[in-house]
């Protein structure tokens, strides 16, 4: 038993064994952040290639997987920055459509709309712990690209808001708007889906 663990550890220092040893774990992580299998595969590949290039920097302290995971996190941010840029230029076309998504939650006087109140009062905490994650993932995926990216970096990658602005080259006020929209919609979506499944 101990022996086979040793061999495994030895193998994992060899880049050609990386894909088998760490591919799935890195892929799962990337998929939960990027929500798209092709994108996740792409960042995993970039991670391995960067790892290969900087292999001499791996001190051997800590696990190889942890080291690769650190690279992966960086690659995810870079990937999101690029994807955000293209989402931004796309959304400029519909900038003329000035309808604020918050309008589906609030009436003209700024009060909560009648039709969202019932769901709002249902506590999110009543959603089963086990079922929370898949429902959350599905809802995150249903958000517009820039909202989900910002939300993911803030809440899953735990980046400070200032860092997110810098990384994605967006203003603070833009960030607050995106985060707020994402939060309103996510809580609503999770509860709606959960209530639907339960029914």
């Amino acid at each position: 038993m101990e022996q086979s663990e040793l061999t495994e550890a030895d193998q994992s220092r060899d880049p050609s064994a990386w894909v088998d040893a760490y591919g799935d774990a890195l892929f799962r992580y990337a998929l939960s952040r990027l929500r798209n299998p092709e994108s996740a595969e792409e960042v995993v590949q970039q991670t391995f290639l960067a790892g290969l290039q900087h292999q001499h920097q791996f001190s051997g302290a800590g696990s190889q997987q942890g080291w690769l995971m650190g690279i992966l996190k960086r690659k995810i941010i870079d990937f999101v920055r690029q994807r955000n840029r293209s989402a931004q230029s796309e959304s400029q076309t519909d900038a003329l459509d000035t309808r604020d998504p918050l309008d589906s939650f609030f009436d003209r006087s700024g009060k909560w709309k009648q039709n969202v109140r019932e769901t709002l009062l249902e506590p999110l905490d009543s959603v089963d712990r086990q079922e929370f994650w898949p429902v959350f993932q599905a809802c995150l995926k249903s958000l517009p690209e820039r909202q989900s990216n910002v939300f993911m970096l803030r809440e899953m990658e735990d980046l400070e808001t200032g860092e997110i602005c810098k990384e994605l080259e967006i203003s603070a006020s833009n960030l607050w708007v995106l985060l707020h929209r994402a939060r309103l919609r996510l809580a609503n979506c999770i509860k709606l889906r959960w209530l639907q499944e339960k029914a």
Partner: protein
Amino acid sequence: MLSCREITKLVSESLDHPLPLSKRVSVWMHLSMCRLCSAFRRDQVVLKERISDEVEHASNEEMPEGVKLSAAAKQRIAKAIDSQA
């Protein structure tokens, strides 16, 4: 008086950084009277907690075990590594 629409925006912001005192007071006063905005805040705190629990405790298992790199992707990536090695 700020509307629910404006208050929820401040509540959302307060999850990421402390608000200036005057805004904090407005939010607090509004929430003490408005069960809808209070429900919004309650949910957002839960959402944050659940996500961070999941991310911390199951760092690689947020996706089901069955989620794996496809064989084709593995092959492609291994090839890319070999060509650079």
